[in-house]
């Protein structure tokens, strides 16, 4: 079976000083099949969010290739990747537009995806209801807590009904009651709807929600030239 997402020998190098590079994920390789659920586990600063950005095409790896649905998409943007494999992302930082209400944010996101108006209303209603956002529908994101903003992002991603869902530490700002809702929801989306999910987490108990796990190693440092005395 052809993998939906495949990383081949991915390495990312960031220059942190003259001639010094910080290397993330030296030669990370994995294949995520259609309908798979993968957790990427690692400590803070180990490159989990960098890996998410590379999956989405927001950052380019220094070495290696990213294949989506059998095609090399290493150099392609998020938009082009999403045109091939419909993707929704939930980032570690909340991303709602501050000048729009919660409801308007969800409408804008779905209208950008081309979801027809009637279907949009239904999907948003369902998604907001699941995450308990009905009472906040006319609130502006800046007036909400971090956990509420995270729920907006999750509601937006789920309302999009993507083929591939990417989540960067999705339970980061959530209290345990909502976390207890999110993890079974992700399992259900994967099991019942066949949605392919890639999730990063620092917590082993959340990682176990997924069918498969990969564990990142801490970044290493590489000097390109001898350090001057």
């Amino acid at each position: 079976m052809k993998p939906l997402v495949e990383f081949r020998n991915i390495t990312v190098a960031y220059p942190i000083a003259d001639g010094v590079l910080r290397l993330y994920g030296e030669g990370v390789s994995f294949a995520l099949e259609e309908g798979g659920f993968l957790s990427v586990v690692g400590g803070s600063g180990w490159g989990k969010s960098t890996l998410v950005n590379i999956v989405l095409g927001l950052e380019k790896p220094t070495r290696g290739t990213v294949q989506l649905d059998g095609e090399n998409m290493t150099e392609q943007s998020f938009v082009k990747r999403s045109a091939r494999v419909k993707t929704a992302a939930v980032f570690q930082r909340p991303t709602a537009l501050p000048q729009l209400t919660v409801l308007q944010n969800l409408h804008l996101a779905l209208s950008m995806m081309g979801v027809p108006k009637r279907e949009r209303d239904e999907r948003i209603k369902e998604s907001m209801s699941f995450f308990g956002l009905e009472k906040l529908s006319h609130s502006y994101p800046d007036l909400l807590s971090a956990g509420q903003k995270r729920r907006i992002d999750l509601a937006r991603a789920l309302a999009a009904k993507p083929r591939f869902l990417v989540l960067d530490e999705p339970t980061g700002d959530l209290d345990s009651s909502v976390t207890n809702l999110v993890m079974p929801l992700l399992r259900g989306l994967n099991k019942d709807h066949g949605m392919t999910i890639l999730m990063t987490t620092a917590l082993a108990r959340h990682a176990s929600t997924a069918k498969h796990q990969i564990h990142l190693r801490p970044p290493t440092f590489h000097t390109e030239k001898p350090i001057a005395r």
Partner: protein
Amino acid sequence: MERPSWAPVILSGALPRELSDLLAIAILSLASFESVFAQLQPLSQSGWFATLLVMVPLTCGLAALSNSSSTQREELALFAYGGAGWQIQLRYVVRGFLVAVIGLLPLWFRFIATENVLSLNLVLFLVSASIGGLSYAAPALKRTRSLAFVEQYKG
């Protein structure tokens, strides 16, 4: 069948609405009024066009720069919602164009009142406004293409 639509991205931010946009409109309006009323000589075409070529891009560029902290959050959201880089740039080009057109309206009225509407002045007027639009989009282009931009998605 769902097809990504570009219209919402552009329409969601095409109208001037920041305080800095209004200030830019006010500055361009003052300059336009000045050139309409203060000149004793008939308006020289090369003179006003050269002035606009300096003034419009600077004013529009500065307006875009001074609201960059709030607009960066918008850009992050729009990319996360599936917006393309060109769509986000286009909304700024349109916004900058409108800032310049509204700000230069006194000059435009002067042309209508004294000359043929479809004159070379109209072309030069639209060129100035277009340069204003491009200048408005320039800071965002630099910002969204930097590595520091995508770092903002990380916690």
